[in-house]
């Protein structure tokens, strides 16, 4: 058995734990009117951002986030060994087209909204194992491009049910490095695809909650840790009801996380912004991590977080054919050392 593994699903990064040396986030106008506005690097003025289409605007957010992350670390694309990126659009075109411009060796990853910790889960052991020095992880989503792909045209006059979520417009990036200053990624727990049979595409929180609970439980079991070992346990985009479901599922397994548990989907908008259950999208956990959480770590307000981005792995076709929605969650433990 590999000496760097703990239990069934967790990697323990001890040799040269990657540090998050730089971070950047760009968000849309609505996100810029939310409670976390001051933590984001840039707020774009409208959905198109001067581009010809929403897809192009999303691509530009991805590229500019990547460039900004590098600039903050005083690095050039040629200093970066890998770019790991993901988004929600078919064939992850945002990430791939952005990689075309950035010219960094690239792996495109699809994990739906779990992409942020998915990219970090793969980047971290590469650095710890000595296979890379600098890896850039960026993910993005755009309300308009996601809405047209997964739901209705924007101008359609339809009502959304109370459990529906609002896709975040934005892009978030972190630069992991073997060298430099910043909080470390110490553990990576890879999630399994979990499906408790939820079919309602307007109730994604319920579809993903079992996956979030499963991976967080696996992390605790593998590492022997518990909720008290973290200042904050964070999930990606379960929103109001998914968050409650996760708390209850973990309670059944004997872990009470309620007092230190936040969901990015509940943090990014005010209730008055009419997003129903909360936010979602690849960018949801990406911008909250890159903008808000890592800043709180820099300020010393929190020192250890357990981050679990959550994804719903269905497509329009599987849902139309009556399949349920499989969920996934990948966990990374981020700790401030010294």
């Amino acid at each position, binding site marked *: 058995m590999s000496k760097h593994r703990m239990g069934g699903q967790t990697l323990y990064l001890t040799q040269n734990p990657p540090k998050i040396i730089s971070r950047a986030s760009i968000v849309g106008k609505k996100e810029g009117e939310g409670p976390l506005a001051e933590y984001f690097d840039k707020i774009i003025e409208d959905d198109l951002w001067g581009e*010809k*289409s929403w897809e192009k605007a999303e691509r530009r957010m991805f590229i500019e986030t990547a460039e900004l992350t590098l600039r903050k670390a005083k690095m050039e694309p040629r200093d970066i060994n890998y770019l790991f990126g993901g988004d929600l659009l078919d064939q992850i075109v945002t990430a791939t087209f952005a990689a075309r411009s950035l010219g960094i060796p690239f792996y495109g990853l699809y994990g739906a909204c779990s992409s942020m910790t998915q990219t970090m889960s793969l980047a971290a052991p590469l650095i710890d194992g000595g296979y890379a020095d600098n890896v850039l992880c960026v993910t993005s989503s755009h309300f308009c491009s996601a809405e*047209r792909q997964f739901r*209705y*045209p*924007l*101008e*359609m*006059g*339809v*009502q*959304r*049910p*109370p*459990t529906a979520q609002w896709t975040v417009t934005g892009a978030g990036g972190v630069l992991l490095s073997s060298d430099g200053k910043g909080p470390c990624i110490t553990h990576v727990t890879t999630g399994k695809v979990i499906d*408790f*049979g*939820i079919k309602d595409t307007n*109730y994604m929180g*319920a579809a993903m*909650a*079992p996956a979030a609970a499963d991976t967080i439980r696996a992390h605790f079991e593998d590492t022997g840790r518990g909720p008290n070992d973290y200042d904050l346990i964070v999930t990606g985009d379960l929103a109001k*009801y998914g968050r*409650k*479901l996760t708390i*209850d599922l973990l309670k059944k397994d004997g872990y009470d996380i309620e007092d230190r548990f936040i969901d990015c989907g509940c943090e990014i908008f005010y209730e008055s912004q009419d997003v129903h259950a909360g936010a979602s999208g690849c960018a949801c956990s990406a911008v909250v991590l890159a903008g808000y959480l890592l800043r709180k770590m820099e300020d010393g307000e929190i020192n250890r977080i357990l981050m679990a981005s959550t994804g719903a792995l269905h497509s329009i076709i599987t849902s139309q054919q009556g399949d349920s929605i499989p969920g996934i969650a990948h966990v990374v433990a981020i700790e401030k050392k010294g």
Partner: protein
Amino acid sequence: MDSLDLKQKKINKEYQDYANSLSPKSKVFKNCMMAFIVGGLICTIGQLINNLAKIYYGMNKEEASTITSITLIFIAALLTGLGLYEKIGKRAGAGSIVPITGFSNSIVAPAMEHKREGYVLGVGAKLFSIAGPVLVYGISTSVIVGLINCFFVK
């Protein structure tokens, strides 16, 4: 294997029931009232146009009906283009979907959205992506009703 499946099915069922109990129900009464008010308002405007056409322009019943439909379709298309129809629809629900204005909205919305993919494969191909089912089943039903009328009703 089967017993394991059954066990998982039971877990799934319990979870689904719990998840559903957690989710607040849509406010049916409020939504119905809004639909009634807005839907009624749209129909009243229609009737107004109809009466005006008859009284002031001396149109017969058929001409007046046609001009009413055309006007409502135009207004809904314009409001869709201005981004206002979705705001009405969010509150009114079925009240703004069911009348002919909803049909107009469901054609203009995809047309606007898919313009960027070109006029043939974008607008042309996607124009009826939402209204299509209404046309298919609406026309099919009218054919069946027509046949019944033709053969069985004098």
